[in-house]
């Protein structure tokens, strides 16, 4: 009855059933906030009585298995990048990524740090990036609403990009970990992916 849209079905978005399911998906977004940087500070006001994101069905969750959205709240160092990738890969589909602040776009104030990545989108697919240093709670709430619209319209498909272009992401990840050297012995991720043909981004 319920079926995850496989890659072939990607274009059949106008089916009624998908619209119905998308409605439920957008109305119940559970987020896993990976609190890497200062952006996490802006989340409590969004969750609590001032802006109250729960009225849209958005709520915090404890583990990646339960979550729909991964929030990367600020700069991410190489060390945390490995954890982010593993966490992202542990999330079941459909999943979305929200990147906070300018750090995740161009490195922000850490742009020339030896240990901080500049563009998160090179390593995992990002659905929405929120500008600002730091973004205001209104901006966060706005991005959530935007994500909900995108889900309803069937546009938020970044997780599929990751599957299709896995070679590209994997190469970037490997280069990052290779250049900076592994922090611990086994830098290799164990997540087994189906090999897809022709990954170009």
């Amino acid at each position, binding site marked *: 009855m*319920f079926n995850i849209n496989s890659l072939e079905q990607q274009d059949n978005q106008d089916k009624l059933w998908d619209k119905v399911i998308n409605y439920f998906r957008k109305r119940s977004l559970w987020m896993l906030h990976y609190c890497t940087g200062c952006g996490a500070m802006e989340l409590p006001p969004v969750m609590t*009585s001032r802006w*109250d994101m*729960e*009225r849209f069905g958005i709520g915090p969750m*404890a583990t990646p*298995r339960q979550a729909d959205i991964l929030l990367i709240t600020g700069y991410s160092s190489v060390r945390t990048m490995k954890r982010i990738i593993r966490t992202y890969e542990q999330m*079941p589909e459909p999943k979305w990524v929200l990147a906070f602040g300018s750090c995740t776009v161009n490195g922000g104030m850490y742009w020339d740090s030896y240990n901080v990545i500049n563009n998160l989108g090179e390593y995992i697919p990002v659905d929405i990036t929120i500008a600002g240093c730091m973004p205001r709670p209104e901006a966060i709430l706005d991005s959530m609403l935007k994500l909900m619209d995108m889900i309803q319209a069937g546009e938020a498909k970044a997780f599929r990009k990751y599957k299709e272009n896995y070679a590209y992401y994997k190469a970037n990840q490997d280069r990052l970990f290779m250049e900076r050297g592994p922090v611990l012995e086994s830098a290799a991720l164990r997540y087994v992916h189906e090999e897809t043909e022709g990954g170009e981004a």
Partner: protein
Amino acid sequence: MMTVFNIILYSLFAILVGLIFLGIGRKVAARVHLRYGPPFYQSIIDVIKLMSRESITHNFVMDLGMVMALTGLIGTMLYIPIAGHIAFESNTNIIVIMYLMAIGHLGMAMAVSASGNPYANIGVSRALTMMLGYEVPFFTVMLGLIIYNQSSSVMVINLAQAGSIWNWNIWQMPIGFIAAEMALQAMMGEKPFDAMIAPAEIASGPMVELSGRYLGLGFLTKAVGVFVETALIVNFFFGGGTSVITFVIKQLEVFLIAVIFDNIFPRYKIEQAVKFLWIFPMGLAVIQLILLAI
């Protein structure tokens, strides 16, 4: 044929009511926090979303366990009279109900343990310890009811309270009611007895590896569990109900008490919780029992 129809009707009713209760509970919690809160049907949306989502399993035991969990709770629910109606011709025995509920707990524990995550096992070990904590006082209260009515049938206890509001057992045995409420708080896993879930500490404990359909089944189990537990209290202390609507309203009332307590208490450590349960509710229950026996 009628029985089959009844069973489907009763289970769907319990699931629906349970989910709406959970939604209302979230709404009330939000109002306690001075928030607007999600719509009352939020839990239904959550379950449908989870069911339609990809899910991750570690092995066959996980599937078996989650189905067993829901099975146990639905089985229990079919055994409980709802405003005098019952899905199945049975004697509505209290001990059967208590033991049938256990199969749900066992199934859930097995499923989450099968994931091999240590957090899940810690959660399960806490949940089972907590179970020993609340089951004993809760049963002691029920023992008082059984001795009082000389019957271990929920239906008989229910019917004995018919008529005036003053026949309700809440007036006959107020101390027992307080003990039962405390035990109920632990039974529903609400604060201060939520050491087994503890999201900030052990990453939501038993649920740590559940995703998609498994978490959805877990939600349904929780919903039916809320229905069963509140229905038991209503049958025991609030005289059941003349119609299904009054019955459900009484249930909601019992549930909301639990929700409000949930939102104003911090969390006990597991051994503190068990000690508390064995001292206060157990003491009250024993006092009630002695009062009844004399």
